[in-house]
């Protein structure tokens, strides 16, 4: 029998739960040996895909002349909707997201046909030879336009708490305003890609960069009209995803699978960056309105919030996204009496999709803008207005009926006010602004409360698979996918800790539909919460079997797994010896684990329930300096205090917080998604769509973890950390707006994103200019 070569290794627990272990792939990352789908060697004869797309945003009677495309050099096959043997619908939940448009087109860039050719270049040359004829239709590009015609992709929903109309009337003061929040391109560094090979059972094997392998499997099967068991999908890692590969990766796999079936050859479909930007969905733009009723102390009595999302041409995930915007339109504040309405507007633009925060940021930004507005009318420091309205005992009911029970946010705000010297700096800034004429400074401290769980309850489940081989080495698999967030590392740490062995002994592996079936997307920040629990369940089953084996029919006492040893009663075994003995004694060393989140439910008809298992919190304080002659600005200081419960891995958690913050920073400052009047995306490449660089983060960028156990029974009482930090960047936008306020003047409106141009208009009080020449 093979014995584990490095038995001694098993004894060193290098990365237990709670330690700042390096990412499991870190050495491969820096060596360039971590393989992404585009790096996989392709089988001989592989063909390459390019798509032909709609040249207009809205048209009927579309006809295609593809003769020249077919005759183009290197072209082996061409497909349209008519060539799909199964279903042309690739919607995740509702209907209407199509693989190929036919007859009519609904946005500029929509895929109409695809080509498989012997090289990427030849495929791209070929698609340009198509001749389109169509009748152009008027385009509808904004949420406002869709609301005017009541053209929605899904029904409007409302949450209601108390008697908002009456309370609004009775409130001594009111403010109201509107906010147009632009969307955001994911700009994952690795573009969308799939590589599909035909299998001998008339099925396909799919390698794809996707957060949701099970859905890719389902949609590939339905496109081809075959059973799920003939499609396997695996994902080792993604080069970033951020929600952009939750539903958007599937169509690539479906098109590639279609060609694989038709040609019997392997097919690669890798989207060039510009097409990726044009053809895949983005963060939703919102046109929101708020009205707050409050007293002289700035305590909210009533809130009316209207959230209108530009969903694009179809539903995709917009239902849950607008729900989540509504769930976060209170952010951390008890609204007392509230009405929150969410519209899902149809437009002739690409169907918007999941993006880190999933609607939450747009809801939260609206109430934060309103808080500043309210504070400015009272001349109270905005941070005090925020503190006064926080959820606390007795003031704990959200507009959707869930009670907040974890009140750590107040303490966190106090701690950060202290730590960042907020009050002294506020004073210093007032003096600076009084002295300076060219430069102005601004400061803001804003909280985040973010609900954790999928709001579609059935998704809150996960599976895992653990094998222990006869040499003691462990193979770990679960339904969660790795996109850089360190999920595989955290679960590896947890499983290694559970067995009391080194992480070096626990091999993580590609997420694969033939290992763990029917998985949920790795999304909603829930990857670790769900999959680590499932893995722990599997580990515990095997541990129980090992202990039972050690007890040999006697009373089964508790065993201890640590330092590469297993202790039971007086007996101490080396891990590898025990595994070998267990194998020889015919103990099963493989287990599947399962987990579902307890205690959550939501009734969409009444808009009431308990959609979240718990909340994660954070606070950020940002300071900016603005040049009043140009609107250029610099983020000069950032302090963050973020709640991760008990951290499973402080280094990875800090990475999520910093990365999330900077992504939010981009959304609110330099990343300006623009369309022209015809509905063509004009910010369609990295040369005109600008994500932050290293120059955009301040010298002083300090993140502190607020480590206090999650009161809920999550894995080691940790908290999810993927999405919440993105919204910490709202502090930057609020600080910019603060800097734009002139003494004795009302707080100006500031566009989102606050580009230097928009800051300039806010400073000059030229409301009309903000939308000058800007597309829809």
């Amino acid at each position, binding site marked *: 029998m093979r014995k584990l070569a490095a038995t001694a290794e098993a004894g060193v627990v290098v990365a237990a739960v709670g330690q700042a272990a390096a*990412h499991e792939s870190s050495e491969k990352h*820096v060596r360039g040996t971590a393989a992404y789908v585009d790096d996989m060697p392709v089988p001989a004869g592989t063909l390459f895909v390019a798509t032909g797309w709609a040249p207009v945003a809205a048209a009927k009677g579309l006809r295609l002349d593809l003769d020249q495309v077919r005759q183009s050099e290197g072209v082996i096959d061409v497909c349209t909707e008519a060539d799909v043997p199964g279903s042309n619908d690739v919607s995740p939940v509702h209907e209407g997201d199509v693989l190929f448009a036919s007859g009519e087109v609904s946005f500029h860039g929509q895929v109409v046909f695809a080509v498989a050719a012997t090289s990427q270049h030849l495929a791209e040359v070929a698609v340009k030879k198509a001749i389109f004829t169509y009748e152009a239709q008027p385009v509808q590009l904004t949420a406002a336009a869709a609301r005017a015609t009541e053209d929605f992709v899904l029904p409007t929903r409302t949450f209601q708490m108390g008697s908002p109309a009456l309370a609004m009337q009775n409130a001594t003061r009111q403010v109201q305003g509107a906010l147009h929040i632009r969307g955001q391109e994911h700009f994952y*560094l690795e573009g969308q890609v799939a590589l599909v090979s035909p299998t001998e059972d008339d099925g396909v094997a799919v390698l794809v960069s996707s957060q949701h392998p099970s859905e890719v499997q389902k949609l590939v099967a339905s496109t081809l009209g075959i059973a799920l068991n003939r499609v396997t999908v695996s994902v080792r890692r993604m*080069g970033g995803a951020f929600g952009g590969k939750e539903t958007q990766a599937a169509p690539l796999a479906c098109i590639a699978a279609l060609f694989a079936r038709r040609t019997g050859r392997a097919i690669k479909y890798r989207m060039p960056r510009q097409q990726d930007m044009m053809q895949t969905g983005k963060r939703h733009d919102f046109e929101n309105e708020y009205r707050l009723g409050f007293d002289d102390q700035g305590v909210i009595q009533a809130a009316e919030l209207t959230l209108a999302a530009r969903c694009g041409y179809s539903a995709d995930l917009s239902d849950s996204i607008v729900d989540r915007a509504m769930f976060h339109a209170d952010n951390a504040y008890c609204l007392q009496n509230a009405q929150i309405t969410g519209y899902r507007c149809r437009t002739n633009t690409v169907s918007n999709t999941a993006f880190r925060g999933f609607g939450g940021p747009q809801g939260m930004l609206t109430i934060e803008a309103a808080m500043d507005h309210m504070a400015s009318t009272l001349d109270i420091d905005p941070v005090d207005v925020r503190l006064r309205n926080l959820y606390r005992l007795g003031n704990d009911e959200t507009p959707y009926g869930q009670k907040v029970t974890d009140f750590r946010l107040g303490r966190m705000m106090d701690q950060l006010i202290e730590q960042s010297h907020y009050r002294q700096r506020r004073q210093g800034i007032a003096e600076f602004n009084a002295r300076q004429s060219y430069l102005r400074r601004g400061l803001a401290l804003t909280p985040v409360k973010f609900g954790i769980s999928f709001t579609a309850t059935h998704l809150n489940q996960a599976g895992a698979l653990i094998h222990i081989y006869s040499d003691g080495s462990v193979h770990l698999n679960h339904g969660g996918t790795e996109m850089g967030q360190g999920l595989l590392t955290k679960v590896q740490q947890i499983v290694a800790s559970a067995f009391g062995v080194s992480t070096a002994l626990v091999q993580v592996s590609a997420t694969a539909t033939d290992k763990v079936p029917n998985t949920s997307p790795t999304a909603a920040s829930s990857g670790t919460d769900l999959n680590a629990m499932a893995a722990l369940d599997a580990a515990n089953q095997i541990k129980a079997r090992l202990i039972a084996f050690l007890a040999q029919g006697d009373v089964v006492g508790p065993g201890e797994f640590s330092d590469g040893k297993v202790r039971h009663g007086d007996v101490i075994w080396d891990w590898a010896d025990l595994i070998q003995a267990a194998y020889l004694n015919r103990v099963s060393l493989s287990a599947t684990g399962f987990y579902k989140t307890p205690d959550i439910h939501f009734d969409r008809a009444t808009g009431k329930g308990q959609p979240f298992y718990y909340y994660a919190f954070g606070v950020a304080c940002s300071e900016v300096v603005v040049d009043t002659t*140009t609107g*250029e600005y610099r983020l000069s200081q950032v302090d963050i205090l973020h709640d991760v419960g008990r951290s499973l891995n402080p280094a990875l958690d800090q990475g999520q917080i*910093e990365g999330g913050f900077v992504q939010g920073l981009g959304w609110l400052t330099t990343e300006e998604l623009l369309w022209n009047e015809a509905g063509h995306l004009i910010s369609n490449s990295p040369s005109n769509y600008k994500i932050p660089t290293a120059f955009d983060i301040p010298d002083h960028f300090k993140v502190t973890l607020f480590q206090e156990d999650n009161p809920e029974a999550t894995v080691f009482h940790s908290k999810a950390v993927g999405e919440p930090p993105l919204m910490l960047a709202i502090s930057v936008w609020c600080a910019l707006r603060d800097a734009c306020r002139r003494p004795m003047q009302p707080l100006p409106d500031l566009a989102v994103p606050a580009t230097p*141009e928009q800051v300039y208009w806010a400073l000059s009080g030229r409301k009309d200019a903000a939308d000058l*020449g800007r597309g829809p």
Partner: protein
Amino acid sequence: MTDISNPIQFWLNGALQAHSGRADETLLGYLRHSGRVGTKEGCASGDCGACTVLVQTDDEHAYKPMNACILPVQQLHGQAVITVEGLPSNDVLHPAQAALIETHGAQCGFCTPGFVMALAGWMDEQAFSAGPDGGGQPEADSPQAETRRLKACREAISGNLCRCTGYRPILQAATHLASRPTRALFETHQRLDKALFDSQPDHSAPYKTGFRAPQTLNDLKDLLRQQPSANLIAGGTDLMLEVTQKQGRFDQLISLARVPALQSLQISPDSAIIGSAVTYQDLQAAAELHWPALHHFLSRLGSPQIRNRGTVGGNLGTASPIGDLLPILLAMDATIVMSHFEAADQNVAISEFLQGYRKTQLQPGNFIKEVQVTGLQDFLRYYKISKRQEDDIAAVSVAVRLKLDADQITLARIAFGGVAEQALRLPALEQALQGQAITEALMTSLHQQVLIALNPISDVRASRDYRREMAANLLVRALKEALGLPMPQIYGLDDA
């Protein structure tokens, strides 16, 4: 095979490669098709840095980071390339690799090979200029020195995008590396082979010589005579976008990069001669002493990777309305020396050279030899406004040059970029300034006149109104600075 070029030879991670391919084949394509997939493609347009590799282009310089996605592999003849796979020596990680692991500087890891190479190139630059004995003393500790160090670290990675980490850990890695001495890469890796570099690839049959890199002016002229329709290429940072973004093809390319006569670079206290094949990087370094305004401006042009390849001639030749240097050259009354394969050299004023949207006086057979500039001691201000501070294209740029006699303006040049189809001057305004003293009233009236004179368009980078107001505001700023009024900067060291 008509579209296959002559075989070139170059060093790749220490092994000599012979390669023949298309004239317009990119290094990234070459690497990835030959199974070296550590170098990633994030954009194929020189914007993200994921494809960064190191190239030693001549033996007088360190290995420099460049974007493999827009680098024609044919340009590498005789040069030495290191990719992420070849960076460890004897399988020991390079310090840049180790530092990124230590600081948790990789999340999804897709950008990481690019950052590794950018950092390694940055270190090599320092090691190379320090020499084998490690160079001078490190700068003493002070808050200003600290800010400068951090700025240099940011600069080093400003051509690399990361969507996951927020850069903080990568900057931390850079700061670690800044304080540790390393050996120059040519000592541990391959050194450029001078004999091979100077050799010409085999141009005989059966190959069609689609890519030619002449080494003398005469050879260049001969080639132009033989192939008048060939495209000229210098750094290729603009031209190669045709290939990677638009499926364009170039069967015949003539490189200007190796002609010494196009490489002159002399900057004296009052004047400058800049060869058309001089890179922004070299220009930036040379300008530090006598032309500081340009030196600072160039740090915001493109990225380090782009500055290592992009040339002054390229910026002029394409005459793009957003070419960053054009307003500056206009304000400096630059003279363009145009050569032709049979006619004598011709000196053309920049204002005549530029003829419209991407149009110049260049005719087939012409090439730019050099640019001559005077007036470096005048009062100079170059400004650029963009959405993002680094590596972004200007929404508006303004170049101002004034000769002052006491407080009187004796000569004024005012040029703008981003406000029309081409970079332009406003001669009427310049006239109006002549002989004037700078007063509040003058500034107000100039501001007004700029608003009236300019009629830009709204596009993805800025609105028409913003462009106009910026043009006017920045002109006024220049005049205020000329008066010596304090104009604090958001990036100033002292206001922090």
